[in-house]
């Protein structure tokens, strides 16, 4: 199917009244939960997951995607109005965005973010439509060795791009792989790490762990500094960028989009890397670098465009290879598996309506965000100031119902509580859980591909270095690891990531 027909099919799928409505719900709910401080996209998606269980697959995926970039967007709103990044990738937005808000230009900062995001979203969606089918047909030629190397690259990227030490991130990833091993081994049928419990035979549900660590863990952490939660929200005046704003932000939006589109495809923490790189680039090439950090509109528009472009294109590895590039995408795969769909190169040929419907709905979702966010910003601002003591019991109830309804299992609820406490302790001992989440999904895949690769090569491990693609991927992974030793990169990483959790 060519792109044109694909897009037509997508439009007819995405604009059925039901899908359109659920796309709207997704975007709306995602923004609403995303603006609540302390709830990032992972917690938001896992909390809202049960809303999609009763839906048909395409509708569910469309709604989930809507929730995802709704929550991304909500994160930028809190970043600008309250100086609280809702998620790691909007940390840079706080630098200039909140500064603009302090100068009474909150509305223009929000508009710059919205316009940049919409433009980037449009380009990102087009990029998916063009490149995903190509990559998917290319991916059909990948053997297990290539897949294994890609997984290694994804894990290493996520470790390098996590705040804190590399060694800690490595340990967390290994722990995640072990959690993924729990359950019945697909190959031999042996029960591994099940502690003789029938509940663990099917494995530990990934969504349960993510909800516990990110949803409940954050609630526990937020509760203890309840008293010093500041709720000062900047007031929003004019939403219209001036002619000067337009002139200053159009080139940064273009550059940010370019960076975002490319980095989003990279497995690992693409979205985060995209917004940081875009900000750094603008600061470097600007004629007035001294204005950055003091309310430069370029410093809002470029990273926002970059993170939204990357948020779109990070769907590419997931849709075409079945490999999640980020923890959020891992969660999307978890949700698809709950729905009975296994993402991979076949998804395009076997479920074209699902794929193209999703692509088109992404664009529609971005359009909705533009119209939903700017006029309703006053409402979001009020939502931000809902006191936490009303909010957190509601969050607890939603995640408890959500986790219970995955398998109708009370055991999952207890597991979620356990991982919530664990997530809290990880925070206390300075261990970032994102690599764990990604590794939990990628670990079992890595084992399976390793097994197949070694079976074909009769146990000869050089197979990973003789395939050019696999070798290339491993070299990139190695260079990334090496880069962290370089003091210059180290400094940038520490500056960029210290706030990012």
């Amino acid at each position: 199917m060519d792109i044109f027909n694909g897009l037509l099919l997508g439009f007819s799928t995405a604009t059925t009244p039901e899908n359109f409505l659920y796309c709207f719900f997704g975007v709306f709910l995602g923004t609403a939960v995303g603006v609540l401080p302390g709830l990032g996209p992972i917690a938001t998606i896992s909390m809202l997951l049960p809303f999609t269980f009763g839906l048909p697959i395409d509708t569910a995926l469309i709604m989930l995607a809507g929730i995802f970039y709704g929550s991304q967007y909500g994160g930028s709103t809190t970043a600008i109005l309250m100086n609280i990044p809702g998620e790691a990738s909007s940390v840079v937005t706080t630098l200039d965005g909140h500064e603009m808000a302090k100068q009474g230009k909150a509305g223009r900062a929000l508009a710059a973010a919205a316009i940049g995001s919409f433009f980037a979203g449009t380009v990102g969606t087009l990029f998916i439509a063009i490149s995903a089918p190509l990559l998917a047909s290319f991916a059909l030629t990948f053997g297990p060795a290539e897949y294994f190397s890609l997984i290694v690259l994804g894990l290493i990227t996520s470790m390098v791009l996590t705040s804190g030490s590399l060694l800690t991130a490595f340990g967390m990833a290994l722990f995640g792989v072990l959690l993924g091993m729990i359950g019945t081994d697909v190959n031999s049928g042996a029960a591994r790490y099940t502690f003789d419990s029938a509940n663990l035979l099917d494995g530990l549900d990934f969504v349960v762990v993510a909800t516990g660590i990110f949803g409940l863990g954050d609630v526990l952490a937020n509760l203890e500094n309840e008293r010093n939660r500041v709720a000062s929200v900047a007031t929003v005046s004019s939403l219209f960028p001036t002619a000067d704003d337009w002139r200053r932000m159009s080139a940064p939006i273009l550059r940010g989009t370019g960076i975002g589109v490319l980095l989003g495809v990279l497995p690992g923490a693409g979205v985060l890397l995209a917004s940081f790189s875009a900000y750094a680039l603008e600061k470097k090439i600007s004629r007035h670098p001294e204005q950055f950090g003091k309310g430069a509109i370029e410093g809002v528009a470029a990273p926002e465009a970059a993170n939204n472009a990357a948020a779109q294109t990070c769907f590419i590895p997931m849709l075409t290879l079945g490999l999640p590039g980020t923890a959020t995408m891992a969660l999307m795969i978890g949700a698809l598996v709950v729905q009975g769909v296994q993402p991979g190169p076949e998804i395009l040929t076997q479920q074209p309506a699902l794929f193209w419907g999703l692509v088109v709905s992404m664009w529609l979702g971005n359009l909705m965000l533009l119209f939903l966010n700017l006029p309703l910003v006053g409402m979001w601002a009020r939502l931000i100031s809902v006191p936490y003591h009303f909010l957190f019991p509601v969050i607890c109830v939603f995640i408890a119902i959500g986790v219970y309804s995955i398998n109708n299992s009370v055991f999952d609820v207890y597991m979620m509580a356990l991982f919530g406490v664990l997530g809290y302790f990880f925070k206390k001992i300075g261990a970032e859980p994102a690599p764990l989440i990604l590794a939990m999904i990628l670990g079992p895949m890595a084992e399976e591909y390793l097994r197949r690769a070694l079976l074909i090569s009769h146990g000869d491990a050089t197979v990973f270095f003789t395939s050019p693609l696999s070798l290339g991927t491993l070299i990139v992974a190695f260079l990334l690891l090496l880069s962290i030793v370089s003091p210059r990169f180290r400094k940038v990483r520490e500056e960029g990531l210290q706030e990012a959790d």
Partner: protein
Amino acid sequence: MKLSQDVLLGLFFTTIGVGSAVMAASYPFGTSSRMGPGYFPVIVSSLLVLTGILVLFRSRLTLGAIPEIGWKPIVVVSLAILIFGLVVEPLGLPIAVFLLTVVSATTSEKFRLDWRAFAGAAAFAAFCSVLFVELLGLPVPIVGNWLQGLGL
């Protein structure tokens, strides 16, 4: 050895690593060309043990003090979720939501145990039952199986 962030993290990694390596050793290891169920877990847990030991060594270099732990939220909120799990099937969703809301809310300093809290929790329980069971069609019992026996 003084307790610091790295000491705890190192001990955590090492303990989990040793535990899972011991368990994995009992699964058939196989050979490289025919990996058994124990092959990959043994490698991963050995690496985890090694990482844990390295983190323990690192703990001698820097002292990351452990921030204060807020035990009250951990205990109370976990307990509230435990109660939800115990109650949801025998007594039904509304009662489970009501209990989870009230018990978890007691963690907050701003919580007052008065009629408003109960009324709010009851209204929220009703809202959740309508939203999740009636509108979204999740298969969660509204009336638990104990209560059904009472002829309700």
